[in-house]
């Protein structure tokens, strides 16, 4: 039954989302207002006295102002597949549908008419590599330089409270040096940017509007109607890959969602790292050490009630306790020189993880208690009778025996944690994080950074996006990915558990 439900869910979401990446045919129609061209993206069958309607993705948001248009079926005539029509994916303004008329270099036409398309295709790889170089410099060197400059600024502020000539001079020198290097880098960047601007492409829409665009801003040029299935498949795969591995563009409605995947996984892993020790220690105390009394009973009741508290309440608690109180104090004590800019005193991945850990710890406690109880009594006795202390018995016999059960708890906790969005919105998730919580800049792991999350991404793209029609497939795809991430994490844990069990020789729980 539940298997059926899951399969239905996956198939449904998959059907809605996966089709999005398949290159659709470009159809041209005649209408009273002139010709239109685009992909048929939706149909509404006729009902009552409404005639059948078609939705056309005409793209060219920069020229038309909108991506989609509705037509009544009897309004449009003579559908026709135009062989040389192209779909151009661009970095900005979404896709373009129309024709490529010419390629220019430094203003001079170098390819025209039928030669224009091959000309673009030929120059595209170079433009892409140029773009990624620019991107790398922006992200890497410029980012590093900025970080160093920020460091100097902070040092300055510190010096103000305890002036020191020599240090001040050293700082000045360092700053000068950095500024010089910054200058160099910006020059190099400018050069590269100019280089990428040199080649431009003349695009023309079906109603004759023309637009010139630098080749650097094009991602793919697809003559969809004349493509073979195989090359469509290639495009499909590369789009899929882009979706999974790239940063988002156009306020999240295009490009990939890698930061969100990464943020989700990292947040769940951090949560696991916190929740397992806490939950296990709590369960050990409750079951093995605490004498049965009102305190233990109260704790049990509390744990059980904790599991029933709505997650947004945890979000509020996380915001109030972790972010403001704990984070605020950390800032006061360790990062006072940066104030009033908060470091830990604002939502960040660590607080989000801790909040989720709090949310899921009852699950781990309960299942760990079960697991501890299921370790055969006679094994404990055997260990104790050998002269082992209680602690040795717990550590060497009981915990390994309970490990599969504890992992079960972790699996449940992860499943719950990965799917929660509400508490995260208060404690550190953002729609677009400038940088990821784990990167190449020292100290590599930035617990104080905000992060992106698949669940929140769905919400953001689906409901907060300016172009929600275009983002609809993204929502489904993101949901599918969220599902996949959760399933993957669970499989990892289940696999670990299976191996543990096998090592223990098939004892069952």
């Amino acid at each position: 039954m539940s298997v059926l439900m899951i399969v239905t869910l996956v198939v449904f979401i998959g059907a809605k989302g996966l089709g999005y990446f398949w290159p659709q045919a470009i159809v041209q129609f005649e209408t009273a207002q002139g010709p239109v061209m685009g992909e048929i993206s939706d149909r509404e069958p006729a009902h009552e006295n409404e005639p059948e309607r078609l939705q056309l993705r005409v793209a060219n948001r920069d020229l038309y102002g909108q991506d989609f248009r509705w037509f009544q079926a009897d309004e449009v005539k003579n559908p026709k597949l135009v062989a040389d029509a192209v779909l151009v994916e661009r970095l900005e303004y979404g896709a373009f549908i129309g024709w490529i008329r010419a390629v220019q270099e430094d203003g001079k036409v170098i390819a025209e008419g039928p030669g224009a398309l091959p000309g673009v295709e030929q120059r595209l790889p170079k433009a892409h590599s140029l773009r990624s170089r620019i991107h790398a410099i922006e992200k890497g060197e410029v980012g590093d330089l900025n970080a160093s400059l920020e460091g100097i600024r902070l040092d300055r502020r510190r010096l103000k409270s305890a002036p020191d000539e020599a240090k001040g001079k050293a700082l000045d020198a360092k700053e000068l040096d950095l500024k010089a290097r910054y200058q160099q880098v910006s020059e190099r960047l400018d050069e590269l940017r100019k280089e990428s601007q040199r080649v431009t492409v003349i695009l023309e829409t079906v109603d004759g509007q023309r637009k010139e665009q630098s080749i650097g801003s094009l991602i793919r040029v697809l003559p969809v109607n004349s493509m073979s299935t195989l090359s469509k498949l290639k495009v499909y795969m590369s789009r899929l890959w882009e979706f999974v591995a790239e940063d988002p563009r156009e306020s999240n409605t295009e490009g990939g969602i890698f930061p969100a995947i990464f943020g989700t996984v990292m947040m769940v892993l951090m949560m696991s790292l916190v929740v397992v020790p806490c939950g296990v220690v709590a369960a050990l105390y409750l079951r093995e050490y605490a004498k049965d009394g009102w305190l233990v009973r109260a704790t049990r009741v509390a744990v059980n009630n904790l599991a029933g508290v709505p997650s947004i309440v945890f979000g509020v608690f996380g915001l109030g306790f972790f972010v403001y109180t704990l984070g605020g104090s950390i800032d006061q004590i360790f990062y006072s020189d940066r104030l009033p800019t908060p470091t830990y005193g604002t939502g960040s991945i660590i607080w989000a993880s801790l909040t989720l850990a709090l949310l899921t710890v009852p699950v781990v406690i309960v299942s760990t208690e079960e697991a501890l109880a299921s370790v055969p009594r006679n094994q404990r006795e055997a260990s104790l009778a050998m002269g082992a202390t209680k602690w040795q018995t717990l550590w060497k016999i009981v915990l390994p025996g309970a490990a599969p059960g504890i992992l079960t708890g972790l699996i449940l906790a992860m499943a719950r944690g990965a799917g929660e969005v509400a508490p995260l919105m208060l404690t550190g998730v953002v729609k677009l994080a400038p940088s990821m919580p784990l990167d190449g800049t020292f100290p590599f792991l930035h617990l104080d950074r905000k992060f992106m999350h698949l669940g929140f991404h769905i919400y953001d793209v689906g409901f907060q996006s300016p172009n929600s029609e275009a983002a609809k497939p993204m929502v489904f795809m993101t949901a599918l990915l969220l599902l996949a991430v959760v399933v993957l994490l669970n499989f990892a844990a289940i696999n670990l558990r299976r191996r543990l069990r096998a090592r223990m020789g098939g004892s069952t729980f």
Partner: protein
Amino acid sequence: MEIEDPRPIPEPVVLPPPKTEPAWDRAAVAEMELALRVRKLDLWYGAKQALFGIDLDVPKNTVMSLIGPSGCGKSTLLRSLNRMNDLIDGVRIQGQVLLGDQDLYDPKVDVIELRKRMGMVFQKSNPFPKSIYENVAYGLRIHGVKDTRVLDETVERSLVGAGLWDEVKDRLKDSALGLSGGQQQRLCIARALAVKPEVILMDEPCSALDPIATGRVEELIFELKKDFTIVIVTHNMQQAARVSDFTGFFWLGKLIEVGLTKQLFTNPTQRTTEDYITGRFG
């Protein structure tokens, strides 16, 4: 008148000494060194008294078996010999248990150290879910032995001692749970041997084993007697008769009769014992 007998006088035949242990009589027993002495032991589970004034002497290098109907307190006594009853809430104990000269219930006694001197084998074989090797090495490891050579030697010696070495020497790294029931039980015995206890307590060690495995364990007990003192609880009177030198009969928490196994099984002095061992118990 003397008659000449032509036949040569035959050499007297010298018989080999009998293989079984010499029959102890009371006098000999009185002179034996005692490994374990229980004096006036009373035990309560909460308000319920489970043992009543137990007096029991176990001579060194002998096997003492405890028999009696279910619930009469055999396991309770056994568990008070290595203070496993400490783990149960509400247990109260009066009286003395002396291992050598040391009173086990002396408040100064180190229970951990004591349990090392008293190995225990349980009714249901309970190997740890670890490898065969780790099972046997467990006792040493928890007492801080790290030297692999010592561990290897002890594991081999214990497994040989438990008669299991030849069967498992090629699969020491395999899980102990892959062994048969009888092998598992002998592994548990090996595990107990590894820490070189003085006394081995066995609580119905063969109750889950087939006759072959039981036979092996019984042979093993016979061998172990040379180096250890053994107290074994069993419901199988034939087994008690086969393996033990002394037998104690428990009934309703009292030690009704204790004596040489031969005596107890052929001619018990107490009517209750008689009824129990002949199966007339109602």
